[in-house]
């Protein structure tokens, strides 16, 4: 019998598991595959739009009036504490203040608000009068420096002001004989100091006074010194711009958190879905995974569902428009039709707000507000009530709910 089984290996699953294990609990983390962290940008978004661009995400959390939104369960201070908990787990990875959004250039040259950013992205913060040199790599087809520079240059900044930006492309050979190397293979190449010297030699002739250098986010994958080494050699501030998935900054965070979970004693079991559960009345006694050959039971005192929603397939909509939760068949909030409307560029699709409702302890509740199981908690993308991609609220919700779910379990075990 484990103290807790956590299902899912994104931010919410890993952080819940780590927090419980560090408090001395026995934890098994079950995950169908690798979690979604590397599909994100590597930044910690708390609240970017509500619906207008947010400058203080914690104030926006406190101002939430929709009782069905995940943030309705938290104060801004609590969200900040959860975000800081992650930052403390991964020292030297993030910089920033949960109470202040910064604007970072995206790979299409738009401005994206986010709260905590990897140290390798910090120099990209958009401020009035900044001068950018955006460097493209000829063999990396997911990044067009001209697009980034032109869009940055023509965008008025909120509150006034503007930046200037120009683009160059250098032919950096990530892998000999390849005209089209992936972002990840570029990052692997830049783990090698020799290759970093070659890249620096290609970029250096293009530098001009007072510019910061933006490169695609491929500056090393395992060597944490890669970005600082390139910056030191170039002698100017250098920052990374995240690419479409698979995102190297997310991979770095995912690997670090997964290692941390294992080091904390979490039993990590990858590769199989949870297909069943056992319960004694309204108390879950364990879950069942379809491991090879036979199903394996994992008995536990508490279960945390941190599977994510539609992205992972745990929320599923059939051809009749009916949405189901695939792991436990839990009751869903906001699941009434119509969930999809035909105006593609119009209002948010209602679909994205489908999920499980929870009480303040993060216990999954039914429409009557009563817990479905007394010891089943939810965290992250499975929670109902937020359109994360538009709000830019995914990581903040994941971390706040993960910390709360873990603390609820720890509190009850006391």
């Amino acid at each position, binding site marked *: 019998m484990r103290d807790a089984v956590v299902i899912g290996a994104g931010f919410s699953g890993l952080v819940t598991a780590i927090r419980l294990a560090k408090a001395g609990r026995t934890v098994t983390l079950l995950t*169908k595959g690798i979690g979604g962290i590397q599909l994100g940008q590597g930044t910690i978004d708390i609240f970017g739009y509500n619906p207008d661009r947010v400058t203080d995400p914690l104030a926006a959390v406190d101002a939430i009036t929709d009782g069905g939104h995940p943030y309705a369960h938290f104060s801004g201070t609590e969200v900040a504490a959860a975000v800081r908990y992650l930052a403390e787990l991964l020292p030297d990875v993030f910089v920033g203040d949960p109470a202040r959004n910064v604007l970072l250039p995206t790979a299409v040259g738009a401005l994206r608000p986010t709260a905590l950013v990897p140290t390798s992205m910090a120099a990209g913060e958009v401020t009035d009068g900044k001068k950018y040199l955006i460097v493209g790599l000829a063999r990396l087809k997911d990044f067009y420096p001209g697009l980034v520079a032109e869009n940055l240059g023509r965008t008025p900044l909120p509150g006034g002001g503007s930046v200037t930006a120009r683009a160059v492309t250098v032919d950096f050979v990530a892998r000999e004989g390849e005209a089209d190397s*992936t972002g990840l293979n570029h990052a692997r190449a830049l783990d090698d100091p020799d290759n970093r010297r070659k890249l620096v030699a290609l970029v250096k002739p293009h530098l001009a006074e007072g510019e910061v250098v933006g490169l695609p986010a491929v500056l090393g994958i395992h060597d944490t010194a890669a970005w600082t080494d390139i910056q030191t050699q170039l002698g100017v501030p250098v920052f990374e711009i995240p690419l479409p998935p698979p995102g190297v900054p997310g991979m770095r965070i995912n690997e670090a958190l997964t290692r941390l979970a294992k080091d904390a004693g979490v039993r990590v079991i990858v590769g199989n879905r949870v297909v069943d559960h056992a319960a004694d009345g309204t108390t879950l006694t364990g879950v069942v995974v379809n491991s090879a050959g036979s199903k394996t039971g994992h008995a536990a005192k508490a279960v945390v569902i941190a599977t994510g929603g539609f992205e992972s397939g745990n929320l599923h909509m059939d051809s009749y428009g009916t949405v189901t939760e695939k792991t436990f068949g839990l009751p869903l909030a906001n699941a009434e039709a119509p969930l999809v409307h035909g105006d593609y560029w119009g209002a948010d699709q209602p679909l994205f707000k489908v999920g499980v409702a929870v009480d303040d302890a993060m216990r999954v509740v039914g429409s009557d507000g009563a817990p479905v199981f007394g010891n089943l908690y939810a965290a992250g993308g499975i929670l109902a009530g937020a359109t994360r991609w538009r709000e830019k609220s995914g990581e903040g919700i994941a971390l706040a709910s993960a910390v709360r779910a873990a603390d609820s379990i720890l509190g009850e075990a006391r």
Partner: protein
Amino acid sequence: MTIEHTHEHEQLMRASLDHCVKCTICETQCPVAAVTPLFPGPKFVGPQAERYRHGLSVDHSIDYCSSCGTCTLVCPQGVHIAELNSLARGAMKQQNNMPFRDQIISRTTLMGAVMTPVAPVANWALGVKPIRVIAEKVIGLHRNAPMPTAHTQTLQGWVKRRGASAPAKPGSRGKIIYFHGCAANYFELETGQKTIEVLEHLGYEVIVPKQGCCGLPLQSNGLFDAARKYVRKLVADLRTGGKDIPIVSASTSCGSMLKREAEEILGVADPELADVGGRMVDIMELLLKLHDEGTLPEDFAPMDVTLPYHPPCQLKSHGIGVPATEVLELIPGVKIKESGVACCGMAGTYGIKKEKYDVAMAVGKPLFDMVLETNKELALCDSETCRWQIETATGVRTVHPITIIHKAYGLS
């Protein structure tokens, strides 16, 4: 020539393609694509290329897939990428004529049966460079690739003749069937002997039915019909050990064949296979289960040592996590350093092929470095060919984790 999807399970494998959201998580974790442009990656040759196959093989790059299964393991959407790629590779090989080499190296029982009676000669021949150079030129076995060491006795022979070393009375925990696989029978008797002795020490009465090869090497080389015959024969062999008795294996890849691959790749839907697969348990999985239940004797002799341990790809595909790490760390003083590396490069018979050898060594390099940094005397790994690969590449003796448990129980 067409790819025949005659089996219901093959259809199910193909249906899983629709779950691919092109997130490319598999591509980021593929150990082969990381080191060579010859293999474009599991999504590219799998969910992507499959749309163009229409029953025919469309390119040769799929031959560079090592079948390590990492892609299927890490897929968050449940796409059976590795299994689909195995099926497509089988069709490609049929279409392009199977090399003679692949026919030989995939018949492990034949190799063992031929080598055992002439073990000293066979071992001598495999150690002589000019002979290996000829073997490389003629049949394409790389001259530096690890080869198993033949013994003059088989594990089956040892079980029959051990006499006095067998326990005097039947154990208190009841019967357990031991599936040893070809490697323990012919090439690595020590692993088989120690597994049996640990099980007996725990109180099991160990039954070792006469048994053949699981067919995995045939399957990896695309010889599906022969593989089905082998695995069905093995299932029948193991069932002679008795009904409803748990079956334990210390060979992770052969165990995975019975638990999963024979059904998912070969489409064997026999209830007999499901019976055996459902009873199958890995030796370290069993020990961790006993520990969780509180019935594992933990009077281990302390050992002050840090050991590098590589959980092989085929173990990960069992969906049981990495039980050896937790079990070994029950021994006072033992610290396990997990490799954190997807694959050693060998992937069964992949790394011994002339054209794949360099790729396999590049795949394994981070693991070899990690082993050498951690302990120059001893390394651990659950799978046979991976052990041979690590040992040949690093010169560090590499054994099954059960060897350490055996010693900690004072059995050696």
